């Protein structure tokens, strides 16, 4: 049986349950929740990174977030609050917070100390130091945090279809129920493509940012602040 038969049938792309519509829903969830999470996590991360206060929270937060079974959370939320878009985006945003927060804090904290000292010596006010020195140097890490968060959300939004029926995950679930592997594959394929495309896009963005943050001088993460062992926080997806 043809694996791509579901994907290549144009009828499956149209209409309110078509692949296209589901893709847009999925993308919508992703953008909304990462946006909300960033709006909270970036300022908070800058504060923690700049002042050094509350950093102990971050390690625990990352580790704890990793252990949350996202399906359980989604199921609970739908049972308690119904299938509205709001609760789902809320859960997705909460899951997107830790990667952005830790990356921002680490980026700001790890901004080249010489540059920061030089700025202080020049008499720059703290606000200016953050805006003109720490932020541009931290940007590559912030973007990598956004990247982690985005992948986490794309993955969790796939699972969210189980409890709310929207997004590309629906193809997986319906395909499974009707024993239509081609439909399941269509869902898996589209989700994978979406994830990889977003990952490459954000990766490219991060690369641009690190080039911009003057060559040779990039924020390096201080080992303790990011729990992942590598320089680029790897995406942990659900």
């Amino acid at each position, binding site marked *: 049986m043809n694996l791509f038969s579901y994907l290549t049938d144009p009828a499956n792309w149209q209409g309110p349950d078509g692949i296209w519509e589901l893709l847009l829903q999925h993308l919508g969830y992703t953008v909304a929740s990462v946006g909300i999470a960033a709006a909270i996590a970036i300022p908070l991360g800058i504060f923690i990174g700049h002042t050094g206060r509350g950093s102990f929270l971050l390690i625990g937060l990352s580790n704890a977030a990793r*252990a949350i079974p996202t*399906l*359980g959370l989604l199921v609970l939320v739908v049972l308690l609050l119904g299938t509205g878009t709001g609760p789902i985006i809320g859960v997705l945003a909460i899951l997107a917070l830790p990667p952005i927060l830790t990356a921002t804090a680490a980026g700001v904290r790890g901004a080249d100390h010489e540059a920061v000292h030089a700025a202080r010596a020049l008499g720059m006010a703290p606000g200016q130091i953050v805006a003109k020195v720490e932020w541009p140097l931290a940007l590559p890490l912030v973007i990598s945090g956004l990247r982690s968060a985005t992948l986490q959300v794309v993955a969790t939004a796939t699972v969210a279809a189980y409890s709310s029926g929207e997004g590309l995950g629906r193809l997986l*679930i319906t395909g499974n129920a009707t024993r239509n*592997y081609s439909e*399941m594959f269509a869902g898996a394929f589209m989700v*994978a493509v979406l994830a990889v495309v977003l990952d490459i896009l954000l990766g490219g963005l991060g690369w641009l940012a690190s080039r911009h943050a003057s060559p040779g001088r990039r924020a390096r993460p201080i080992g303790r602040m990011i729990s992942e062992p590598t320089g680029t926080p*790897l995406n942990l997806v659900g």
Partner: protein
Amino acid sequence: MNLDWAWIERNLPMIGSLLLEHVILAVLPVLIAFVVSLPLGFLVSKTKRVANVILAFLGVIYSIPSLALFVMMPLVLGTKILDPVNIVVALAIYSTALLVRSVVDGLRSVSPSVRQSASAVGYGWSRRLFRIELPLAMPVIFAGLRVVTVSNIALVSVAVLVGSGALGKLFDLGFASYFYTPIIIALILMLGLSLIFDALILAIQRGTLPWLRKRPA
């Protein structure tokens, strides 16, 4: 939200067997990944250009949501969708993707002067690798092991969407009839497993790398 203790008591055998299944599905991939990523990571750390392509490939794999991987496994393996092998292989691939990175970073973190001293004293490359470089890389690798194990424990439950999922089945059961007890139990058990295994790996690390004990955590 009260727990239905009677239900828990009636269903202890089922909960127990799901728990066991969950541990196997989560931990087996980590063991496989550990064995695979050591040589793979070593090879990757020695090359430059090829290393970067391989790492990028692994990065791409890692960015694919686990559920999508679970669904695509039957294609690659020729198994049926219900086969637990799909879960184990998919998670092993996932875990390898991250662990190879850990191994590479760990090996690369060994300072060149240490390597040179070892060679100077007369260590061949393999003795140097096993006696000096790997042990020094271990903290980073252990950190990777902890990350991978904890996230696997959570990821296994996602497989319930394709008919598997071990403790995840309790989410399914609870969701079908507004029944909170199995959901809460599953959450508690999974979080408990994460804590236990994280601590276990940490203990193994402290046990096998005694020279690190003096350093602050």
